[in-house]
């Protein structure tokens, strides 16, 4: 009985799911619509978008729910893609195995670096994540056995359970989308769980949480490891999409872009992060199609979002709903 009750309360407390559902339906339909245009181009743009949505989603887990501003999140994408590159060079091209290795490596890196970063707070935390990201970047640059600065071209996409199904662009798209959906549901469960509530409690007031018996460090560390593992998967996919691995995947600018995606979409909503990634990358795509000087437009848009956007696109949606009288207050 009590379980049922909490379920109901939880359902009431949860943000409306309609936008997320609409978004996923739209994403499922993309390959069908792509047939009427430049199919392989559209598919590759949207696969990339989905991959970045996974990364942004994982960042939102620690950023939105833990208020941990990680400025080195792209490092995990790098770990994922290098797991593919390095394993593939040594003849291991099963994607499930690559994902496993990528996740383990990401967890090790996340735990090792967060153990240091989490000791610092505020600006120092941000800067130390940045430093660790840079450290990994330079490490990758120096890996001359695996391409060094130039990167590493893969001979093809990984196999899935021994089949070459991922070589098909449409299949690859749906695999990425399924992973995104899976991680979205998982993240939703995590944030609604006791663990997620503790994390949010720490975000609001770490001192009080410590006083009632929750050691913030352990929860934050777990969240960082989790986010890192999920982000590594996006790296595995990115390497497969591009069939290329490069240190450029983990520059600090890339980490900044991931932050921008989450903020643009609205943090702490999960679906906002996904929407943010879609909006950011499509904006980039559309603007760069319009003019070579597209960065002159993108930059000011980001500035305006930072200056005026409260809660990003998800916040905008919530305000619109409130104005039209629908939904919870």
């Amino acid at each position, binding site marked *: 009985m009590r379980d049922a009750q909490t379920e109901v309360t939880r359902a009431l407390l949860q943000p409306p799911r309609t936008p997320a559902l609409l978004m996923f339906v739209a994403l499922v339909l993309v390959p069908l619509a792509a047939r009427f245009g430049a199919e392989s181009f559209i598919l590759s743009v949207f696969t990339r978008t989905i991959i970045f949505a996974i990364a942004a989603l994982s960042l939102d887990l620690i950023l939105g729910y833990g208020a941990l501003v990680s400025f080195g999140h792209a490092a995990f994408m790098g770990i994922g893609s290098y797991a593919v590159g390095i394993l593939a060079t040594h003849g291991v091209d099963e994607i499930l195995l690559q994902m496993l290795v990528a996740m383990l490596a990401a967890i090790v890196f996340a735990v090792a670096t967060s153990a240091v970063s989490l000791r610092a707070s505020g600006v120092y935390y941000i800067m130390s994540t940045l430093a660790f990201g840079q450290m990994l970047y330079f490490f990758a640059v120096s890996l001359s056995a695996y391409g060094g600065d130039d990167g590493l071209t893969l001979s093809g996409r990984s196999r899935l359970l021994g089949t070459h199904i991922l070589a098909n662009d449409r299949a690859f798209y749906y695999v990425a989308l399924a992973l995104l959906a899976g991680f979205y549901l998982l993240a939703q469960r995590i944030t609604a769980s006791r663990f997620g509530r503790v994390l949010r409690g720490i975000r609001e007031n770490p001192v009080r949480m410590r006083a009632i018996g929750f050691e913030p460090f352990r929860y934050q560390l777990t969240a960082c490891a989790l986010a890192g593992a999920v982000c590594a998967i996006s790296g595995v996919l990115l390497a497969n999409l591009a069939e290329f691995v490069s240190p450029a995947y983990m520059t600090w600018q890339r980490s900044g872009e991931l932050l921008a995606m989450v903020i643009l979409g609205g943090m702490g909503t999960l679906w906002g992060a996904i929407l943010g990634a879609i909006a950011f990358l499509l904006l980039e795509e559309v603007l760069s199609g319009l003019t070579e000087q597209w960065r002159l437009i993108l930059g000011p848009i980001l500035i305006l979002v*930072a200056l005026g956007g409260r809660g990003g696109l998800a916040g905008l949606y919530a305000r619109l709903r409130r104005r039209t009288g629908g939904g919870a207050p």
Partner: protein
Amino acid sequence: MSTALLLVQTLNGLQLGILLFLIAAGLTLVFGVMDFINLAHGVQYMIGAYLAAMFCAWTGSFWAGIALTLPAALAFGLLLEVLVFRHLYGRDHLDQVLATLGLIIFLNQAVKTVWGAAPLSVPMPDLLSGSIALMDGLLYPVYRIALIGVGLATAGVLYLLINCTRVGMLVRAGATNAPMVSALGVDIGRLFMIVFGFGAMLAGFAGAMVAPILSVEPGMGDNLLILTFVVIVIGGIGSIRGAFVAALMVGLIDTLGRAFGPQLLRLVLAPAAASQTGRSLAPMLIYILMAAVLFYRPSGLFPVKQ
């Protein structure tokens, strides 16, 4: 490793350190006094270099070019303060990160649009070109030595400004406890603006100074910016003294590590392994240093905030 090589690399390291200090000085104050993350500080260094390139070409003289660059960099910094930064004080760090990231993207493209994507160069003034012999068979460019001298002089002036003037006192007080300074009747908004403009000018000055020895190109400030962050985090945010010590540390460790790391490792490792490990490790050294400092002293070497 020979003494001559060691001396040259030490001077190079010193020069990088001085350069980092000029950029970090403004940034650490902006961070410390305003609790503001300014990613766009590296862009101001780049703008300084471009302005110097432009003014030197216009006037045909290096000295006149530099003299024009300083007020222009100051004006540019103040313009940015009024347009963007002013609205972000007291906001969430994330908003600041996003806005200043947008500014980087915009300005990197803008210089490309205005001055073209090809690197520009600034001719070296006749007075400072050429080399002097530091010891037998060791020539070192005069300009680089002048750079170190100018940097040290600037650091000295800055020290006097911060420690012996009224504005300096307010800046120090602001870095320690800004709300209290504001409560005591100081116009903190104006103080912010002064600090910001001055920081921008210093970064621009640094850019102008290195323009003759580096190529002036879009994005030249981006990687230096990260080094600057490392410097101010190691030194302690808001501390000029910390920035100075940390800048020299980072400059020397980075330069010497890259130059001699592989050779030193050869003492303990096989040559091939040593050169590979050395090349991997050298660029990571300063980040390892920063992690170590943060681990033992989470607020840097010279903490300012209570």
